[in-house]
Protein backbone atom coordinates (compact mmCIF):
# COMPACT_ATOMS: atom_id res chain seq x y z
CA UNK A 1 0.00 0.00 0.00
CA UNK A 2 1.10 3.57 -0.35
CA UNK A 3 2.34 5.56 2.62
CA UNK A 4 0.91 9.05 2.88
CA UNK A 5 3.88 10.59 1.14
CA UNK A 6 3.99 14.10 -0.20
CA UNK A 7 3.15 13.26 -3.82
CA UNK A 8 5.85 14.15 -6.36
CA UNK A 9 3.21 15.29 -8.80
CA UNK A 10 4.21 17.68 -11.59
CA UNK A 11 4.87 21.19 -10.31
CA UNK A 12 2.16 22.64 -12.54
CA UNK A 13 -0.62 20.67 -10.87
CA UNK A 14 0.56 21.83 -7.42
CA UNK A 15 0.77 25.50 -8.34
CA UNK A 16 -2.80 25.61 -9.49
CA UNK A 17 -4.00 24.29 -6.12
CA UNK A 18 -1.54 25.18 -3.38
CA UNK A 19 -1.53 28.86 -4.23
CA UNK A 20 -5.27 28.71 -4.64
CA UNK A 21 -6.61 30.24 -1.43
CA UNK A 22 -10.18 30.19 -2.65
CA UNK A 23 -10.54 27.06 -4.87
CA UNK A 24 -13.95 28.14 -6.10
CA UNK A 25 -12.66 31.47 -7.48
CA UNK A 26 -13.56 31.34 -11.13
CA UNK A 27 -10.82 32.51 -13.52
CA UNK A 28 -13.20 34.53 -15.65
CA UNK A 29 -15.31 34.00 -18.72
CA UNK A 30 -13.62 31.02 -20.36
CA UNK A 31 -14.29 28.66 -17.46
CA UNK A 32 -17.88 29.84 -17.35
CA UNK A 33 -17.98 28.97 -21.07
CA UNK A 34 -17.79 25.32 -20.01
CA UNK A 35 -21.54 25.15 -19.49
CA UNK A 36 -22.94 23.14 -16.56
CA UNK A 37 -20.42 22.73 -13.74
CA UNK A 38 -18.54 25.73 -15.05
CA UNK A 39 -17.46 26.60 -11.54
CA UNK A 40 -16.28 23.13 -10.55
CA UNK A 41 -12.68 22.93 -9.50
CA UNK A 42 -11.58 20.72 -12.40
CA UNK A 43 -12.62 23.39 -14.93
CA UNK A 44 -10.82 26.07 -12.92
CA UNK A 45 -7.70 23.93 -12.65
CA UNK A 46 -7.65 23.05 -16.38
CA UNK A 47 -8.15 26.66 -17.39
CA UNK A 48 -5.21 27.63 -15.18
CA UNK A 49 -3.02 25.06 -16.94
CA UNK A 50 -4.21 26.43 -20.31
CA UNK A 51 -3.43 30.02 -19.27
CA UNK A 52 0.00 29.00 -18.01
CA UNK A 53 0.78 27.38 -21.38
CA UNK A 54 -0.67 30.23 -23.45
CA UNK A 55 1.21 32.91 -21.52
CA UNK A 56 4.55 31.30 -20.82
CA UNK A 57 4.59 28.28 -23.11
CA UNK A 58 4.94 26.15 -19.96
CA UNK A 59 4.17 22.64 -21.18
CA UNK A 60 1.73 21.08 -18.68
CA UNK A 61 3.58 18.34 -16.80
CA UNK A 62 6.26 18.32 -19.51
CA UNK A 63 3.93 16.77 -22.09
CA UNK A 64 1.49 17.99 -24.73
CA UNK A 65 -1.74 16.67 -23.26
CA UNK A 66 -3.67 16.95 -19.98
CA UNK A 67 -6.89 15.01 -19.62
CA UNK A 68 -9.25 15.66 -16.71
CA UNK A 69 -11.77 13.13 -15.43
CA UNK A 70 -14.76 14.15 -13.37
CA UNK A 71 -16.05 11.74 -10.70
CA UNK A 72 -19.38 9.94 -10.79
CA UNK A 73 -20.65 9.37 -7.22
CA UNK A 74 -22.33 6.06 -6.35
CA UNK A 75 -23.25 4.64 -2.92
CA UNK A 76 -22.33 0.92 -2.88
CA UNK A 77 -22.93 -1.12 0.35
CA UNK A 78 -23.44 2.10 2.34
CA UNK A 79 -20.09 3.44 1.07
CA UNK A 80 -19.70 6.57 -1.09
CA UNK A 81 -17.60 5.55 -4.10
CA UNK A 82 -16.33 7.94 -6.76
CA UNK A 83 -15.99 6.35 -10.23
CA UNK A 84 -13.72 7.67 -12.98
CA UNK A 85 -14.13 6.53 -16.60
CA UNK A 86 -10.68 6.73 -18.21
CA UNK A 87 -11.72 5.25 -21.56
CA UNK A 88 -11.38 8.55 -23.45
CA UNK A 89 -7.57 8.23 -23.21
CA UNK A 90 -6.04 7.47 -26.61
CA UNK A 91 -3.58 4.63 -27.24
CA UNK A 92 -1.04 7.16 -28.56
CA UNK A 93 -1.05 9.03 -25.21
CA UNK A 94 1.88 7.91 -23.02
CA UNK A 95 1.07 8.65 -19.35
CA UNK A 96 3.67 10.87 -17.68
CA UNK A 97 1.86 11.38 -14.37
CA UNK A 98 -1.59 11.12 -12.81
CA UNK A 99 -2.87 13.06 -9.81
CA UNK A 100 -5.97 12.66 -7.64
CA UNK A 101 -7.47 15.93 -6.33
CA UNK A 102 -9.94 15.94 -3.45
CA UNK A 103 -11.26 18.40 -0.89
CA UNK A 104 -10.70 17.56 2.79
CA UNK A 105 -13.09 18.91 5.40
CA UNK A 106 -11.38 20.34 8.53
CA UNK A 107 -10.97 17.83 11.40
CA UNK A 108 -9.57 19.89 14.38
CA UNK A 109 -12.08 20.62 17.23
CA UNK A 110 -12.10 24.39 16.83
CA UNK A 111 -12.51 24.01 13.10
CA UNK A 112 -15.19 21.41 13.76
CA UNK A 113 -16.81 23.80 16.24
CA UNK A 114 -16.98 26.46 13.57
CA UNK A 115 -18.39 23.90 11.15
CA UNK A 116 -21.08 22.78 13.62
CA UNK A 117 -21.97 26.39 14.40
CA UNK A 118 -22.39 27.01 10.68
CA UNK A 119 -24.37 23.83 10.09
CA UNK A 120 -26.59 24.40 13.25
CA UNK A 121 -26.88 20.60 13.43
CA UNK A 122 -27.26 19.39 17.05
CA UNK A 123 -25.79 15.99 16.31
CA UNK A 124 -22.79 17.66 14.78
CA UNK A 125 -21.17 18.06 18.19
CA UNK A 126 -21.66 14.37 18.99
CA UNK A 127 -18.56 13.44 17.09
CA UNK A 128 -15.57 12.81 19.31
CA UNK A 129 -13.59 15.97 19.60
CA UNK A 130 -10.48 13.99 20.41
CA UNK A 131 -7.76 13.35 17.90
CA UNK A 132 -9.17 13.53 14.33
CA UNK A 133 -9.97 10.17 12.75
CA UNK A 134 -7.36 9.03 10.24
CA UNK A 135 -8.69 8.22 6.82
CA UNK A 136 -7.64 5.93 4.03
CA UNK A 137 -7.97 6.52 0.36
CA UNK A 138 -8.63 3.22 -1.44
CA UNK A 139 -8.37 2.81 -5.22
CA UNK A 140 -9.83 -0.11 -7.13
CA UNK A 141 -9.75 -0.65 -10.88
CA UNK A 142 -12.25 -2.68 -12.87
CA UNK A 143 -12.92 -3.23 -16.54
CA UNK A 144 -16.00 -1.70 -18.03
CA UNK A 145 -18.70 -4.28 -17.47
CA UNK A 146 -17.89 -6.18 -14.28
CA UNK A 147 -20.08 -5.85 -11.22
CA UNK A 148 -17.30 -6.73 -8.78
CA UNK A 149 -15.61 -4.13 -6.63
CA UNK A 150 -12.54 -4.61 -8.81
CA UNK A 151 -8.90 -5.06 -7.96
CA UNK A 152 -7.40 -3.05 -5.07
CA UNK A 153 -4.75 -0.90 -6.77
CA UNK A 154 -3.63 1.24 -3.86
CA UNK A 155 -4.41 2.59 -0.40
CA UNK A 156 -3.09 5.80 1.16
CA UNK A 157 -3.35 6.99 4.74
CA UNK A 158 -4.46 10.62 4.90
CA UNK A 159 -3.05 13.00 7.48
CA UNK A 160 -6.05 15.18 8.48
CA UNK A 161 -5.47 18.80 7.36
CA UNK A 162 -5.63 21.68 9.90
CA UNK A 163 -8.37 23.30 7.80
CA UNK A 164 -10.51 22.45 4.77
CA UNK A 165 -8.46 22.53 1.62
CA UNK A 166 -7.90 20.77 -1.68
CA UNK A 167 -5.28 18.03 -1.52
CA UNK A 168 -3.45 16.26 -4.31
CA UNK A 169 -2.03 12.74 -4.36
CA UNK A 170 0.18 11.24 -7.02
CA UNK A 171 -1.54 8.13 -8.33
CA UNK A 172 0.69 7.60 -11.39
CA UNK A 173 1.62 3.97 -10.52
CA UNK A 174 -2.04 3.13 -9.87
CA UNK A 175 -3.30 4.55 -13.19
CA UNK A 176 -0.39 3.11 -15.21
CA UNK A 177 -0.95 -0.37 -13.76
CA UNK A 178 -4.71 -0.20 -14.32
CA UNK A 179 -4.25 0.93 -17.92
CA UNK A 180 -1.65 -1.76 -18.54
CA UNK A 181 -4.24 -4.35 -17.45
CA UNK A 182 -6.92 -2.72 -19.59
CA UNK A 183 -9.03 -1.75 -16.58
CA UNK A 184 -10.02 1.82 -17.41
CA UNK A 185 -12.68 2.23 -14.72
CA UNK A 186 -11.20 3.49 -11.45
CA UNK A 187 -13.04 3.86 -8.14
CA UNK A 188 -11.86 5.94 -5.19
CA UNK A 189 -13.21 5.53 -1.68
CA UNK A 190 -12.46 7.67 1.35
CA UNK A 191 -12.66 5.28 4.30
CA UNK A 192 -12.35 6.22 7.98
CA UNK A 193 -9.64 4.23 9.80
CA UNK A 194 -12.12 3.57 12.63
CA UNK A 195 -15.79 3.02 11.97
CA UNK A 196 -17.94 6.17 12.11
CA UNK A 197 -21.70 5.98 12.55
CA UNK A 198 -23.69 6.36 9.30
CA UNK A 199 -22.50 7.00 5.80
CA UNK A 200 -19.86 9.64 5.60
CA UNK A 201 -21.37 12.59 3.79
CA UNK A 202 -19.54 12.98 0.43
CA UNK A 203 -17.76 16.30 0.11
CA UNK A 204 -19.72 18.97 -1.80
CA UNK A 205 -16.55 19.40 -3.85
CA UNK A 206 -16.33 16.34 -6.11
CA UNK A 207 -12.81 14.92 -6.51
CA UNK A 208 -11.22 14.67 -9.95
CA UNK A 209 -8.24 13.06 -11.68
CA UNK A 210 -5.74 14.76 -14.01
CA UNK A 211 -3.60 12.67 -16.35
CA UNK A 212 -0.53 14.34 -17.86
CA UNK A 213 0.50 12.61 -21.09
CA UNK A 214 2.59 12.88 -24.19
CA UNK A 215 0.51 12.23 -27.30
CA UNK A 216 2.99 10.55 -29.66
CA UNK A 217 0.56 11.01 -32.57
CA UNK A 218 0.18 14.77 -32.14
CA UNK A 219 2.93 15.54 -34.64
CA UNK A 220 1.30 13.37 -37.28
CA UNK A 221 -0.20 15.37 -40.17
CA UNK A 222 -3.77 16.41 -39.45
CA UNK A 223 -3.63 15.36 -35.79
CA UNK A 224 -5.90 18.29 -34.95
CA UNK A 225 -8.69 16.65 -36.98
CA UNK A 226 -8.41 13.38 -35.03
CA UNK A 227 -9.55 15.02 -31.79
CA UNK A 228 -11.32 18.21 -32.88
CA UNK A 229 -13.07 17.43 -36.16
CA UNK A 230 -16.18 15.76 -34.78
CA UNK A 231 -18.09 15.59 -38.10
CA UNK A 232 -17.40 15.93 -41.79
CA UNK A 233 -17.66 19.63 -42.70
CA UNK A 234 -19.60 18.54 -45.83
CA UNK A 235 -21.83 15.74 -44.49
CA UNK A 236 -23.04 13.39 -47.25
CA UNK A 237 -26.55 12.30 -46.17
CA UNK A 238 -27.28 12.18 -42.44
CA UNK A 239 -24.50 12.99 -40.05
CA UNK A 240 -22.64 10.11 -38.38
CA UNK A 241 -23.96 9.08 -34.96
CA UNK A 242 -21.00 10.74 -33.27
CA UNK A 243 -21.57 14.02 -35.07
CA UNK A 244 -21.88 17.22 -33.12
CA UNK A 245 -25.25 17.26 -31.34
CA UNK A 246 -26.91 19.92 -33.42
CA UNK A 247 -24.65 20.08 -36.45
CA UNK A 248 -27.77 20.60 -38.56
CA UNK A 249 -28.69 23.84 -36.77
CA UNK A 250 -25.48 25.35 -38.07
CA UNK A 251 -24.64 28.35 -35.86
CA UNK A 252 -22.28 29.78 -38.45
CA UNK A 253 -23.20 33.03 -40.21
CA UNK A 254 -23.34 32.53 -43.99
CA UNK A 255 -20.99 35.02 -45.61
CA UNK A 256 -21.59 34.24 -49.29
CA UNK A 257 -23.30 37.19 -51.05
CA UNK A 258 -26.37 36.24 -53.16
CA UNK A 259 -25.67 35.99 -56.97
CA UNK A 260 -26.85 39.36 -58.36
CA UNK A 261 -29.70 38.74 -60.87
CA UNK A 262 -30.04 35.86 -63.38
CA UNK A 263 -26.70 34.34 -64.48
CA UNK A 264 -25.69 35.69 -67.92
CA UNK A 265 -24.68 32.88 -70.27
CA UNK A 266 -21.92 33.38 -72.80
CA UNK A 267 -23.97 32.38 -75.83
CA UNK A 268 -23.74 34.87 -78.68
CA UNK A 269 -27.09 36.73 -78.90
CA UNK A 270 -29.34 35.46 -81.69
CA UNK A 271 -27.05 32.52 -82.47
CA UNK A 272 -28.90 30.17 -80.12
CA UNK A 273 -28.62 26.41 -80.51
CA UNK A 274 -31.94 25.87 -82.36
CA UNK A 275 -32.20 22.51 -84.16
CA UNK A 276 -31.70 22.68 -87.95
CA UNK A 277 -34.88 21.12 -89.54
CA UNK A 278 -34.09 17.62 -90.85
CA UNK A 279 -34.12 17.73 -94.68
CA UNK A 280 -31.92 17.09 -97.71
CA UNK A 281 -28.48 15.76 -97.34
CA UNK A 282 -26.81 18.91 -98.42
CA UNK A 283 -25.12 20.61 -95.57
CA UNK A 284 -26.56 24.02 -94.80
CA UNK A 285 -24.59 26.55 -92.86
CA UNK A 286 -26.64 26.59 -89.70
CA UNK A 287 -26.40 30.31 -89.11
CA UNK A 288 -28.13 31.06 -92.48
CA UNK A 289 -31.37 29.71 -91.01
CA UNK A 290 -31.36 31.62 -87.76
CA UNK A 291 -33.36 34.88 -87.70
CA UNK A 292 -30.75 37.10 -86.25
CA UNK A 293 -30.55 40.87 -85.73
CA UNK A 294 -26.92 40.55 -86.67
CA UNK A 295 -27.36 39.02 -90.12
CA UNK A 296 -27.05 42.13 -92.34
CA UNK A 297 -23.54 43.47 -91.77
CA UNK A 298 -23.74 47.21 -91.15
CA UNK A 299 -21.08 49.69 -92.36
CA UNK A 300 -18.87 50.79 -89.46
CA UNK A 301 -20.31 54.09 -88.08
CA UNK A 302 -17.88 56.87 -87.08
CA UNK A 303 -16.26 56.41 -83.65
CA UNK A 304 -18.41 59.16 -82.03
CA UNK A 305 -21.49 57.73 -83.65
CA UNK A 306 -20.52 54.21 -82.60
CA UNK A 307 -19.96 55.19 -79.01
CA UNK A 308 -23.39 56.83 -78.83
CA UNK A 309 -24.93 53.94 -80.71
CA UNK A 310 -23.07 51.52 -78.53
CA UNK A 311 -24.58 53.17 -75.51
CA UNK A 312 -28.04 53.18 -77.09
CA UNK A 313 -27.55 49.57 -78.05
CA UNK A 314 -26.51 48.82 -74.50
CA UNK A 315 -29.43 50.72 -73.05
CA UNK A 316 -31.87 49.15 -75.55
CA UNK A 317 -30.84 45.54 -75.06
CA UNK A 318 -28.96 45.65 -71.83
CA UNK A 319 -30.09 42.18 -70.90
CA UNK A 320 -28.33 40.64 -73.96
CA UNK A 321 -24.56 40.43 -74.24
CA UNK A 322 -23.26 42.59 -77.14
CA UNK A 323 -20.15 41.77 -79.17
CA UNK A 324 -18.14 43.86 -81.64
CA UNK A 325 -18.25 43.11 -85.39
CA UNK A 326 -14.90 41.30 -85.38
CA UNK A 327 -16.21 38.76 -82.86
CA UNK A 328 -19.41 38.42 -84.86
CA UNK A 329 -17.49 37.76 -88.09
CA UNK A 330 -15.44 35.08 -86.34
CA UNK A 331 -18.62 33.54 -84.97
CA UNK A 332 -20.25 33.53 -88.39
CA UNK A 333 -17.20 31.97 -89.93
CA UNK A 334 -17.31 29.24 -87.33
Amino acid at each position, binding site marked *: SHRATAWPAPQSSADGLVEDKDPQRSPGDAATALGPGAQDMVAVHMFRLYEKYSRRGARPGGGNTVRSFRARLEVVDQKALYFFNLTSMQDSEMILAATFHFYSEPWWPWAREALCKRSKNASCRLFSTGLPARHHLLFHSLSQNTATQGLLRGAMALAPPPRGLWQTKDISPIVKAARRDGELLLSAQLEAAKKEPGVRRPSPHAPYILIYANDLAISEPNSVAVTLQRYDPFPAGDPEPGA*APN*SSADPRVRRATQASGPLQDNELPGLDERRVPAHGAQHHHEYELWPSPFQALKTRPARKERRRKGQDLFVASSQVLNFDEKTMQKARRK
Partner: protein
Amino acid sequence: QWNEPRICSRRYLKVDFADIGWNEWIISPKSFDAYYCAGACEFPMPKIVRPSNHATIQSIVRAVGIVPGIPEPCCIPDKMNSLGVLFLDENQNVVLKVYPNMSVETCACR
Protein backbone atom coordinates in the same frame (compact mmCIF):
# COMPACT_ATOMS: atom_id res chain seq x y z
CA GLN B 1 -5.48 41.56 -50.17
CA TRP B 2 -5.11 43.59 -53.40
CA ASN B 3 -2.12 45.57 -52.18
CA GLU B 4 -0.35 42.47 -50.88
CA PRO B 5 3.19 41.97 -52.24
CA ARG B 6 3.56 39.66 -55.23
CA ILE B 7 6.49 37.86 -53.72
CA CYS B 8 6.12 34.78 -51.48
CA SER B 9 5.25 36.12 -48.05
CA ARG B 10 3.06 35.58 -44.96
CA ARG B 11 -0.49 36.91 -45.22
CA TYR B 12 -2.89 37.56 -42.35
CA LEU B 13 -5.64 35.05 -41.60
CA LYS B 14 -7.67 34.93 -38.42
CA VAL B 15 -9.48 31.61 -37.82
CA ASP B 16 -12.68 31.71 -35.79
CA PHE B 17 -13.61 28.21 -34.57
CA ALA B 18 -17.28 29.20 -34.89
CA ASP B 19 -16.73 29.52 -38.68
CA ILE B 20 -15.60 25.89 -38.91
CA GLY B 21 -18.24 24.58 -36.50
CA TRP B 22 -15.84 23.52 -33.73
CA ASN B 23 -16.86 26.19 -31.20
CA GLU B 24 -19.37 23.86 -29.47
CA TRP B 25 -16.59 21.85 -27.86
CA ILE B 26 -13.62 24.23 -27.98
CA ILE B 27 -13.54 26.30 -24.78
CA SER B 28 -10.46 28.36 -25.52
CA PRO B 29 -9.21 30.01 -27.66
CA LYS B 30 -12.37 31.01 -29.60
CA SER B 31 -10.18 32.23 -32.48
CA PHE B 32 -6.49 32.56 -33.31
CA ASP B 33 -4.17 34.19 -35.86
CA ALA B 34 -3.21 31.32 -38.21
CA TYR B 35 -1.78 33.36 -41.20
CA TYR B 36 -1.03 31.68 -44.55
CA CYS B 37 1.64 31.79 -47.28
CA ALA B 38 1.09 33.10 -50.80
CA GLY B 39 3.07 34.77 -53.57
CA ALA B 40 5.47 34.07 -56.40
CA CYS B 41 8.75 32.16 -56.28
CA GLU B 42 10.02 33.62 -59.57
CA PHE B 43 13.55 33.49 -60.87
CA PRO B 44 15.72 35.07 -59.59
CA MET B 45 14.50 34.45 -56.03
CA PRO B 46 15.60 37.06 -53.48
CA LYS B 47 17.12 35.96 -50.16
CA ILE B 48 14.00 37.03 -48.31
CA VAL B 49 12.08 34.01 -49.62
CA ARG B 50 14.77 31.76 -48.07
CA PRO B 51 14.80 29.27 -50.98
CA SER B 52 16.12 25.78 -50.36
CA ASN B 53 18.98 24.67 -52.63
CA HIS B 54 16.55 22.46 -54.51
CA ALA B 55 14.15 25.37 -55.06
CA THR B 56 17.02 27.49 -56.45
CA ILE B 57 18.01 24.77 -58.91
CA GLN B 58 14.39 24.11 -59.92
CA SER B 59 13.86 27.81 -60.50
CA ILE B 60 16.92 28.06 -62.76
CA VAL B 61 15.93 24.96 -64.73
CA ARG B 62 12.51 26.47 -65.23
CA ALA B 63 13.93 29.86 -66.29
CA VAL B 64 16.36 28.30 -68.76
CA GLY B 65 13.55 26.14 -70.17
CA ILE B 66 15.73 23.03 -70.36
CA VAL B 67 12.85 20.82 -69.39
CA PRO B 68 9.34 21.95 -70.41
CA GLY B 69 6.54 22.01 -67.85
CA ILE B 70 8.64 22.59 -64.72
CA PRO B 71 6.56 24.76 -62.34
CA GLU B 72 8.09 27.46 -60.21
CA PRO B 73 8.81 26.44 -56.56
CA CYS B 74 5.92 26.70 -54.04
CA CYS B 75 5.46 29.32 -51.36
CA ILE B 76 4.87 27.34 -48.13
CA PRO B 77 5.13 27.80 -44.35
CA ASP B 78 8.71 27.53 -43.09
CA LYS B 79 8.64 28.15 -39.33
CA MET B 80 5.35 27.37 -37.53
CA ASN B 81 4.03 27.73 -33.99
CA SER B 82 2.05 25.46 -31.64
CA LEU B 83 -1.32 26.31 -30.18
CA GLY B 84 -2.76 25.12 -26.84
CA VAL B 85 -6.46 24.22 -27.18
CA LEU B 86 -8.80 23.65 -24.23
CA PHE B 87 -11.80 21.54 -25.29
CA LEU B 88 -14.44 19.07 -24.09
CA ASP B 89 -13.99 15.45 -25.14
CA GLU B 90 -16.88 13.13 -25.97
CA ASN B 91 -17.43 12.42 -22.26
CA GLN B 92 -17.64 16.17 -21.57
CA ASN B 93 -14.33 16.04 -19.69
CA VAL B 94 -12.01 19.04 -20.12
CA VAL B 95 -8.86 18.31 -22.13
CA LEU B 96 -5.83 20.50 -22.87
CA LYS B 97 -3.79 19.61 -25.93
CA VAL B 98 -0.83 21.53 -27.40
CA TYR B 99 -1.05 21.06 -31.19
CA PRO B 100 2.10 21.76 -33.23
CA ASN B 101 2.16 23.62 -36.57
CA MET B 102 -1.05 25.56 -36.06
CA SER B 103 0.11 29.04 -37.14
CA VAL B 104 2.67 30.39 -39.62
CA GLU B 105 5.74 32.27 -38.38
CA THR B 106 7.64 32.55 -41.71
CA CYS B 107 7.13 31.48 -45.35
CA ALA B 108 9.68 30.21 -47.87
CA CYS B 109 10.01 28.87 -51.41
CA ARG B 110 10.44 25.10 -51.60
